[in-house]
C-alpha cells in the first residue's frame, strides 16, 4: 500500500532526439551511451505517454543489453529506466517480464557494485508489485536468490526496503514462511522497523505480515523476539504515518489470531487502532480498516463485544453504505462494512439486536443482496447468515424483510461463493422455528432445488443441501416427506451417509432419522429398502470401525426410530450382528451411547405388539437383560432408562 503519485499524461511528442537516443543505446562509446540513458531516464520518469512511446520503438532489448554490460553508471541508469517503465502499471510490467528483464536483474543482484545492485533491487521490487502475474512465480526457485536478498537486507536502507518488499511478495506458502523464519530475516526486519523512515517501516511490516500470516511456527519465532513485537506496537501509535499504523495492526492481528498476543492492554490497543482506521476520513483507509477488523474479531466473542461498543463503530460502519464520491470505490466499502457486521454479529444476540435495530441494516442488506457487484453480494450474504443465527431475528425482522426471496435467486446463480453462502443462510431460514420455512416450502421447486445442492461438487454446498433437507424433514407431514423422497431417495441418503466427510455423514443420518419418523413410514421404507439401510448402518456400530462416537450415536438414534415400526422391529431383531453391537454399546464408556442403546432396546422389547416375547427371549439369551441389570448401578440418567427397559421384559 504505497501511495502513488498521479502520473500526468502529456501529449506524446515524437522527438528526433528520442529515437536517436534509442539508437545511441547500441553505442560503444561510454560517454555517448551514458548521455543517451540519462536523456531517456529524464524523459521517461513521470510520463506515461513517453513510456509507451519508448516501448513502441523497441527500447527494452537495448536497455537489457546495457544492464548486461554490468557497468556503472550506465547500467544503473538503464535499470532505473526499467523501474520507471514498471511504475506505468500492470501492462508495462507484463511487457518487461516477457522480454526477460527479471533474469537480467536477478543476475545484477549478485554483483559487487552496490549502486547497480540497488537499482536492480528497486526494479525487481516494482515488478513484483504484481505477484499474481504468472511469470512472477519462479523467483523462489532461482538458486541462491532468496539467501542473497536476506544478505543484502543489511547492506543499506534502500536495499533493505526493496528486499523486504520482494520477499514479502514472493512468500506464498507455509513452507516458504517457515524456511524464511529460520534465516536472519526477522532480525533484518527489526532493523528496518528501528529506523524513522516510514518507507522502511512499511517494507519491514509488509514482509513481517506476509511471514506471519496464518503460520503458527513463525508466530512462535516472532513471539520470543520481544523487542520486535514491542517495536511493532510502537509503530502502531498515532504519531506514525497512517499506513505504518495499518501495517503494524495487520502484523499484530496475524499474531493475535495465532494466539501469540496476550493481555487486555495489547488486545485493546490493536482493536483501538483498527477502529480508528475504520473511522478515518480517507475511504481507502476505512476500507482496509474494516477488512482488518473482520480478521481480528472473527471467532473471538470477547473482541466482538468490545468492538460493538467501541467509539460508535457500528454507526461509523453503517455510514459506509452512503454512496461515496468515488463510484468505483463504493462497492468495496459496502462489502467491507457487511463483512465487518458479519463478524460483529457472529456470536452474540445483543450485538445482532443492536446491528438490526440501531443501524437499520436490513434495508442495506436487501439492496446488498441485489447489488451488481459480486463481492458486495457475498459480503451481504455472510452478514445475513450471521444475523440469521438469531432465533428472534428469524421470527421477526428477517421474516418481515422476506429475505428468502433474494436468497432463492442467489442460490441459483453460477458463482460458487454465492451458492455457498446463500445455501448456508438458507439452512438457518429452514429451521423449524423459522416462519420463513413454510413460506419457502410453499414455493414451487424448493425441495428440488435443495436436492440439487447435494449433487454439487463443492463440499460445503453439498453439506448445506443435506442440512437444509434435514431441517425441512423435521416434523414434516407425509405429503412433504414423500415429495422429498421423490427428489432425494433413501438410496441417495445412504450414499451420502457413506461419504468421507464426517459433518456430511452426521447431517445425512439426521436426515434419515427425520424421514423415519412414524411407524407406518418406517415399515414402508424398511420393507422396500431395509436391506440397504442395515447394510450401510450396522457396520458403523461395529467396535473396530473408524467411526466417531457422535456418528455411532446418530446411527443408534436412527435405529431407535426404526424400532418404532412393526415390521421393522422384526427386521432388526433378526440381525444378530446389530444386536451384538447394541450389547457392546450398553457397556460403552460414553454415556450418550449407553443411553441411546438402552432406548433402542426398550423399543424392541415393548410389549404392545406381537412378537415381543420372542424378541425379549432373544435379548435375554444374548445377555442384554443382564447387561441392563448391571446398568441399574450406573449414573441415574442411565439407571432410570435401564429400569424402564427392564420393566418391559416379562
Amino acid at each position, binding site marked *: 500500500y504505497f501511495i502513488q503519485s498521479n502520473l500526468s499524461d502529456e501529449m506524446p511528442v515524437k522527438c528526433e532526439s528520442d529515437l536517436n537516443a534509442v539508437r545511441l543505446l547500441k553505442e560503444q562509446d561510454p560517454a555517448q551511451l551514458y548521455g543517451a540513458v540519462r536523456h531517456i531516464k529524464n524523459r521517461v520518469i513521470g510520463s506515461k505517454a513517453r513510456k509507451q512511446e519508448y516501448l513502441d520503438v523497441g527500447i527494452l532489448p537495448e536497455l537489457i543489453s546495457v544492464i548486461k554490460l554490468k557497468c556503472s553508471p550506465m547500467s544503473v541508469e538503464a535499470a532505473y529506466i526499467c523501474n520507471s517503465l514498471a511504475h506505468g502499471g500492470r501492462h508495462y510490467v507484463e511487457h518487461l517480464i516477457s522480454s526477460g528483464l527479471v533474469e537480467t536483474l536477478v543476475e545484477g543482484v549478485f554483483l559487487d557494485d552496490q549502486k547497480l545492485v540497488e537499482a536492480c533491487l528497486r526494479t525487481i521490487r516494482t515488478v513484483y508489485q504484481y505477484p499474481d502475474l504468472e511469470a512472477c512465480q519462479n523467483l523462489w526457485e532461482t538458486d541462491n536468490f532468496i539467501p542473497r536478498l536476506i544478505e543484502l537486507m543489511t547492506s543499506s536502507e534502500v536495499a533493505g526496503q526493496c528486499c523486504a518488499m520482494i520477499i514479502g511478495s514472493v512468500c506464498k506458502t507455509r513452507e516458504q514462511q517457515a524456511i524464511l523464519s529460520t534465516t536472519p530475516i526477522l532480525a533484518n526486519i527489526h532493523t528496518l522497523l528501528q529506523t524513522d523512515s516510514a518507507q522502511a517501516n512499511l517494507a519491514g511490516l509488509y514482509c513481517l505480515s506476509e511471514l506471519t500470516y496464518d503460520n503458527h511456527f513463525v508466530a512462535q519465532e516472532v513471539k520470543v523476539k520481544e523487542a520486535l513485537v514491542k517495536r511493532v506496537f510502537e509503530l502502531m501509535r*498515532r*504519531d506514525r504515518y497512517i499506513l505504518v499504523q495499518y501495517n503494524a495492526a495487520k502484523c499484530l492481528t496475524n499474531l493475535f489470531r495465532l494466539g501469540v498476543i496476550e493481555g487486555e*492492554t495489547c488486545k485493546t*490497543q490493536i482493536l*483501538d487502532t483498527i*477502529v480508528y482506521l475504520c473511522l478515518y476520513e480517507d475511504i481507502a483507509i476505512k476500507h482496509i480498516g474494516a477488512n482488518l477488523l473482520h480478521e481480528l474479531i472473527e471467532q473471538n466473542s470477547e473482541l466482538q463485544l*468490545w468492538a460493538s*461498543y467501541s467509539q460508535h463503530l457500528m454507526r461509523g460502519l453503517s455510514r459506509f453504505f452512503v454512496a461515496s464520491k468515488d463510484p468505483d470505490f463504493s462497492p468495496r466499502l459496502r462489502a467491507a462494512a457487511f463483512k465487518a457486521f458479519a463478524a460483529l454479529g457472529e456470536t452474540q444476540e445483543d450485538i445482532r439486536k443492536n446491528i438490526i435495530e440501531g443501524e437499520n441494516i436490513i434495508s442495506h442488506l436487501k439492496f446488498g443482496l441485489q447489488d451488481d457487484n459480486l463481492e458486495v453480494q457475498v459480503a451481504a450474504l455472510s452478514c445475513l447468515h450471521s444475523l440469521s443465527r438469531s432465533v428472534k431475528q428469524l421470527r421477526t425482522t428477517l421474516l418481515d424483510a422476506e429475505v428468502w426471496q433474494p436468497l432463492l435467486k442467489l442460490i441459483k446463480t453460477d458463482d460458487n461463493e454465492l451458492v455457498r453462502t446463500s445455501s448456508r443462510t438458507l439452512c438457518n431460514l429452514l429451521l423449524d422455528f423459522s416462519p420463513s420455512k413454510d413460506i419457502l416450502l410453499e414455493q414451487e421447486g424448493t425441495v428440488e432445488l435443495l436436492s440439487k445442492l447435494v449433487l454439487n461438487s463443492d463440499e460445503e454446498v453439498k453439506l448445506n443441501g443435506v442440512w437444509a433437507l434435514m431441517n425441512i424433514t423435521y416434523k414434516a407431514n407425509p405429503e412433504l416427506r414423500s415429495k422429498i423422497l421423490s427428489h432425494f431417495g433413501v438410496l441417495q441418503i445412504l450414499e451420502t451417509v457413506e461419504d468421507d466427510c464426517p459433518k456430511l455423514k452426521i447431517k445425512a443420518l439426521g436426515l434419515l432419522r427425520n424421514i423415519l419418523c412414524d411407524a407406518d413410514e418406517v415399515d414402508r421404507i424398511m420393507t422396500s429398502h431395509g436391506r440397504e439401510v442395515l447394510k450401510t448402518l450396522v457396520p458403523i456400530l461395529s467396535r473396530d470401525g473408524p467411526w466417531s462416537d457422535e456418528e455411532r450415536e446418530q446411527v443408534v438414534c436412527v435405529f431407535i426410530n426404526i424400532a418404532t415400526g412393526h415390521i421393522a422391529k422384526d427386521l432388526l431383531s433378526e440381525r444378530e450382528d446389530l444386536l451384538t453391537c447394541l450389547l457392546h454399546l450398553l457397556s460403552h464408556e460414553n454415556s450418550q451411547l449407553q443411553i441411546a442403546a438402552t432406548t433402542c432396546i426398550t423399543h424392541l422389547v415393548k410389549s404392545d405388539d406381537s412378537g415381543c416375547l420372542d424378541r425379549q427371549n432373544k435379548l435375554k439369551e444374548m445377555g442384554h437383560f443382564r447387561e441392563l441389570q448391571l446398568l441399574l448401578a450406573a449414573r441415574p440418567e442411565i439407571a432410570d432408562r435401564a429400569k424402564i427397559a427392564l420393566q418391559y421384559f416379562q
Partner: protein
Amino acid sequence: FIQSNLRTPLIAMSEDRISKLYPHVNEAQLPRAWSSKDRWQFIKLSRTNLRVHYNGQGKNHKDAASVRATQPIPAACGIYYFEVKIISKGRDGYMGIGLADANVNMNRLPGWEKDSYGYHGDDGNSFCSSGNGKKYGPTFTTGDVIGCCVNLIDSTVFYTKNGVNLGVAFDNVPQNLYPTVGLQSPGEIADANFGDRPFVFDIEGYMLEWKTKLQRQITTHVSPVCDSDIDSVLKKIVFGYMVHHGYCGAAESFSKVTNLFFLEDIPSIQSRQRVQNLVMRGCIGEAISLVHELYPSLLTAQPDLLFKLQIRNFIEMINSLSSPDPASHPYSIASLMNGSEEAEQRMDVDHKPEGLESERPPSRQSLEQILLFGRELAAQHTQDEALKQQLKEAFSLLAYRDPRQSPIGYLLDPSQREQLCADLNSAILESHGLPRQPPLELAISQAKNTVGRMLESGLGAAAYSGLDKFLKCSLKPQ
C-alpha cells in the same frame, strides 16, 4: 547537565506521570482526590479520599448522593482523564460517573441536573443535564473500570470501559467542570484514579492522536500573507539576527544576496562583537575597559549594568581559582596559550581582532586579590536588591571547598555569561538608538506569550501547540 533526582522514587513516579500527562498545568491546580467538604451526607470517603462509599438508605432517587473532586479540570490540560473502578455495585448498582459544575446539587446523580454530565451503570445510558438518559454504552458493574475523558480542545467527553473507548458521549461541554461520582444504593463502593497510578485505558495514545492532529494543522496552516511577503519577512529576521549578534561577515554576504541594507555601520557591529566575545570568554575586566573606551558614557549612565559586570568579573575570578585542571576549562586553555597563534585560530570571528592584548582571558589571581576585589564591590552603593543578592551569592561561592559542586555551582557555568552578554549588547544598541532585541527573539517571545495567554484563557488546544518542544523551553506557568 544531568540533574540528580533527590525525590523519593515512589512520589517521583506518580508526580512524573501527572506532569507528563499535563505538562502545562501546576499540579496544585489538578483534581487529585474527592473533596471531603463538597459532597452529599450519604457519601463516605476513605483511602486518602480516593474511595467513595454509599451509606444512605437508598430508597429512591431522592437518596442519591454525589461528590466532587477537590479542583475543577483546568482547560490548560488540553485533554483530561480519570478512571473509577467499581469495587462493589452494592444492592442495585445505580452508579453514575461524570462531571459537574461547582453549583450542581450533590443530592443527585451526575447528569440529572443542569451543567452536569453522567454515564450510569445500571442502564449504560448517558445523561446530559437531564433526567432522561440517552442510549450510550454497555452497562457496568463490580470489577469494571470506567474512565471519563474531557477533551478541552473540541469540548467533548467520552467514556471508556475496561480500556475500550466508548466514543463521544457529550459535545459542547463547558469548562471548569469537576470530576464527579454519584451513588444511590447501599453497599456501592468505587475507587478513583486521578493519574497517580497507570490507567487501564491508553490515554497517552489518545493524547498523541490529538497532538499529531494539531501539530499537523499548524504545520500545514496556510498563512494569510502571500508567500513573497513571508519570504521577505524571513530574510529580515535572519539578517536582523546576524547583525544583532555581530556576525558581520555573514551579514555582509547575506545583504549582498538579499539586497537588505544595514542600519548600523560595519565598524560599529564589529565593535559590539569584540565586546561580546570578551564577555562570552569570561574576560569581564577587559570587556569593561573596552566599553569605556568605545562608548565612554554608557556604563556611567547605567551603573547597575556596570555593577552586574563587576559581579560577573568577581565570579570569573573565583572560576579561574577553582578549576583544578586547566584543561577541563575551555577558557583556561586560552589563558595558558595567551596570545598564541592557535588561540587566534580558535576564535570564531569574522575579522581578525585588533590587538590580541585586549583578548586576554583573566589570569589566575590569588585568593587575597579576589577577596580585595570583592570587598571593594561590596563597598559600592547599589539600590537594587536583586543585585545585592547576586553579590551575596557570589561571595558564598568562596565558602565551599569545591564551589562547582555547591548548590550555587551553576553560577560558575559559562552559560551564565549569555544573559549578561545579551544585556550589554542591548544596552549598546539602545544607546545608538537601535532596537534592543532582534526580530527573531521578538517573534519567539510573541509566540511564547501568545500560547501562554491562550492556556490561561482556557484554549485547550494550546496545550498541544508543540511550541515548547520546538523552542526547547517550558511553557508551564510559574
